[in-house]
């Protein structure tokens, strides 16, 4: 077994929290400028992009690209210039004046600057049966667990782009999908069209998900309400995939002075993506007002990297003047 040693007193130029598209793009820029960069990743390298089946709207890939391949490319590009990726979680950051101190599962790290690009995680629906059948019939990652539903029936809960896109992916395995949309179907026109044309998917607009019911440790049905008639409706199923939005990965900032907005996303005051803690920058989905797209996360990552360079050189970026 290889035990890695870290010099506890080393002060990194920049520690990036998360290794999703935003940080990986930022790392390409910082490392090409010889800014010593380490990224911490507690989940999948590539972030949510890595668990997305197919990405059709990331510029430069006219035929689209799988999320896993795009993530591998981003990782390879960042590592090519010397980015170091630590598999671990950051649990706390503190401003110590000359440097920032990070508590991580790999020990303490010190940095002159930090980039927070921790994105978000799937939200739960909070109905009876959801926790009980977690990973035994209730899932949040189609590319991970979809293969268990070959020739089975599924319910997908959600009405946004993710629910639509992942339903389409799940038709590779499932014989039929009931898509339960609580209020309006908010997916993009092109995704809505594809879903509507897919004979394996039945869309139920205005249908809440009230309970996930099972027997002998297996999910058997979902009980919901048709909001128009107020009547209870039942959907026999072998499993449920939930895509009802995301909640920001900012719990680790509780107790820090970093300012968050009312949904927990990180605020910035100036145009330089810097938070209210000097030297701590933010990029991607976790930034207040983010558009939650890979292209924008990558764009913000690049922008943050350039501002980090200015910060490390002790120069304010021209747009602040």
């Amino acid at each position: 077994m290889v035990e890695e040693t870290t010099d506890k007193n080393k002060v990194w130029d920049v520690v990036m929290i998360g290794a999703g598209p935003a940080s990986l793009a930022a790392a390409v820029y910082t490392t090409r400028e010889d800014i010593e960069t380490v990224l911490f990743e507690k989940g999948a390298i590539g972030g949510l992009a890595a668990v997305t089946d197919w990405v059709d709207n990331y510029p430069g890939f006219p035929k689209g690209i799988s999320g896993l391949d795009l993530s591998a490319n981003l990782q390879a590009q960042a590592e090519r210039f010397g980015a170091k990726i630590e598999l671990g979680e950051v649990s706390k950051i503190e401003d110590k004046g000359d440097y920032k101190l990070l508590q991580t599962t790999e020990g303490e790290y010190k940095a002159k600057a930090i980039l927070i690009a921790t994105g978000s995680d799937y939200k739960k629906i909070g109905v009876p049966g959801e926790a009980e059948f977690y990973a035994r019939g209730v899932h949040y990652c189609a590319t991970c667990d979809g293969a268990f539903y070959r020739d089975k029936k599924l319910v997908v809960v959600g009405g946004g782009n993710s629910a639509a896109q992942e339903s389409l992916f799940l038709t590779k395995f499932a014989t039929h999908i009931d898509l339960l949309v609580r209020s309006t179907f908010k997916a993009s026109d092109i995704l809505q069209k594809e879903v509507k044309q897919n004979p394996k998917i039945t869309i139920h607009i205005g249908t809440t998900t009230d309970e996930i019911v099972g027997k002998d440790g297996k999910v058997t049905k979902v009980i919901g309400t048709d909001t128009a008639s107020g009547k209870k409706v039942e959907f026999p199923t072998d499993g449920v995939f939930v895509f009802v939005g995301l909640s920001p990965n900012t719990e680790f900032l509780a107790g820090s002075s970093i300012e968050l907005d009312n949904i927990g996303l990180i605020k910035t005051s100036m145009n330089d993506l810097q938070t209210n803690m000097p030297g701590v920058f933010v990029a991607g989905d976790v930034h207040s007002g983010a558009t939650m797209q890979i292209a924008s996360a990558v764009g913000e990552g690049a922008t943050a990297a350039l501002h980090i360079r200015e910060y490390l050189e002790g120069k304010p970026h021209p747009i602040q003047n």
Partner: protein
Amino acid sequence: MPKNITIFTTNTCAYCGMVKKWLGAKGYSYEEVNIDEHPERQQEALQASGQLAVPVTVVTRQDDSQEVVVGYNLAKLAPAVS
């Protein structure tokens, strides 16, 4: 050092890659069972974990006792292999 480590994976599962990467970085060798390529072995993953999810990592210790870790969960995986 465990006697044997088996990971059940699929082609599209990002967390499966992370378990392999983490084990590789720590110097552990493992056997991979890809259930997309071997659907007949899906039942083994299900039996080991009781869950319909991948990755499933089955760690067999020197005394033949087993520990099963579902998902990419370093808090469970690290003590299981140590």
